[in-house]
């Protein structure tokens, strides 16, 4: 192959990859751009003019802030619950050989391989069958349920390569099991646990399908957007979407930097 042909081919791949990245990022740019739009009617589809007023008062639309509050509370409770439960499971799966381990590994994978609509619908039939009023707490239950598998997967990835000798050393030095867990085990797995907490918080705040089935009359942020989509989405929704995007990216970079610094210090 001639040098010129090879050059062209290398750059063809690069061009294709950059095009794919553009495709991935284009809607995000649109969301951010239209958060500065000043629509004249109900529909925020066409560019009318630049304004900062949506950013000055992002919760100026009735119902948006209460919905966001519900989402934040639910995400906090669900991510804490799922992370606590899932971390214990990940510890069991990585550090112990026991009968039924392969089964447990497969079982934990199943919720991730179930379409959201089936999971949401089946939970609703449970609540209907036992006459349990759907609302705030059924959403929390549903979110813990779908988050557990993601927490286990995230923490487990971090636990592989974990040096058990450190725990044994602590035990040899007369630390009891509880002290060993808090002083040795937890600090070692903390980055994985934090990543799992962030991931489940993000999944929870974004979830629409499962929430939609189990929300009753409770309105979370995605449910608010769904309702607004029928009558015209106000640009403030784009502002909140942009804030969530920037906050998540910021937290992710912070976690990466923290881990990198931790790795450098070791």
């Amino acid at each position, binding site marked *: 192959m001639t040098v010129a042909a090879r050059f062209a081919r290398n750059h063809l791949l690069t061009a*294709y*990859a950059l095009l794919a990245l553009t495709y991935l990022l284009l809607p995000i740019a649109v969301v951010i751009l239209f958060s500065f739009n000043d629509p004249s009617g109900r529909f925020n589809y066409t560019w009318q003019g630049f304004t900062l007023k949506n950013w000055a008062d992002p919760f100026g639309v009735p119902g948006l802030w209460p919905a966001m509050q519900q989402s934040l509370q639910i995400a906090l409770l669900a991510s804490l619950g799922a992370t606590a439960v899932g971390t214990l*499971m990940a510890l069991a799966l990585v*550090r112990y050989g*026991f009968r039924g381990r392969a089964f447990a590994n497969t079982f934990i994978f199943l919720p991730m391989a179930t379409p959201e609509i089936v*999971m949401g619908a089946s939970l609703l039939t449970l609540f209907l069958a036992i006459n349990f009023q759907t609302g705030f707490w059924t959403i929390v239950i549903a979110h813990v349920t779908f988050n557990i598998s993601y927490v286990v997967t995230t923490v487990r990835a971090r636990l592989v390569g974990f040096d058990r000798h450190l725990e044994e050393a602590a035990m040899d030095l007369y630390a009891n099991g509880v002290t060993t867990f808090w002083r040795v085990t937890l600090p070692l797995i903390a980055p994985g646990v934090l990543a799992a907490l962030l991931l489940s918080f993000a999944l929870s705040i974004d979830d629409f399908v499962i929430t939609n089935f189990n929300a009753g009359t409770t309105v979370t942020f995605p449910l608010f*957007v769904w309702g607004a989509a029928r009558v015209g989405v106000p640009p403030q929704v784009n502002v909140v979407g942009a804030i969530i995007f920037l906050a998540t990216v910021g937290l992710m970079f912070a976690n990466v930097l923290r881990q990198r610094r931790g790795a450098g210090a070791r």
Partner: protein
Amino acid sequence: MGFLHRHRWVTPYGLLALGLGWLAVFFVVPVYYLAESSLQTGDADFGYAFTWAWGNYADALGRYQDQLLRSLQYAGIATVLAFVISYPLAYWIAFRGGRWKNLLLVLVIAPFFVTYLIRTLAWQTILADEGPVAGVFRSLGIIGQDGRLLATSTAVVAGITYNFLPFMALPLYASLEQVDKRLVEAAEDLYASRRVAFLRVTFPLSLPGVFAGTILTFIPAAGDFINAQLLGTPQQAMIGNVIQSKFLVINDYPQAAALSLVLMAAIVTIVAVYARVLGTEKLAP
């Protein structure tokens, strides 16, 4: 801790108990109630009773086979498109990314940081009749003078492809990243052209990622109803739209439950056949 020291074998079960119990109650038991609900008869006003009504399945399939087939078809096309878009991208990041790899990965999953509904609404804006893309397509003659992009099956498939693309790209990247570059060099040293080295070495080694990526994309795509709702019309309705409206709007629980289980069965069958074809027994991690 004396008890735990003497009986170390109980520790893993103790650690697992809470989570497995939770999943049993809120993941397994609900599937039982879904199955029970699918065999009930009655109506929304007077309630439903269990009557072994297998006819619900025949009714549901007879009335909604179009939507079911459309869901599988859209999900299949979207999975292929996502693969075609993300394989070169994942390859490029894994082999040419250098020290920018992590940053590029963040860009690949960036869509996930924008609320699902909001990023789908952004596609509404992009594809709108008065939007720039439709205008360019009209002037190029790709669509007619009064042709539309929004409210077509193209829009729905494009939306599904976009929304689940990171599920494809990440496993592809993970497996390509692990490909031992020395094997590729060895093939080239043995006079394989770059194309042959890719087809005979790199691509086969990335098959676990292809398998994981296609399944992780196909499953949520087949159950999706948001893209059909926001980017399509009732002519593009998928099985998810039917299940959602039957459960939440007209409260026809038995048929909705039957359709959910049919969807699940269709997905499991397709994934099982696919796994057999790809021979994943050898590839499983």
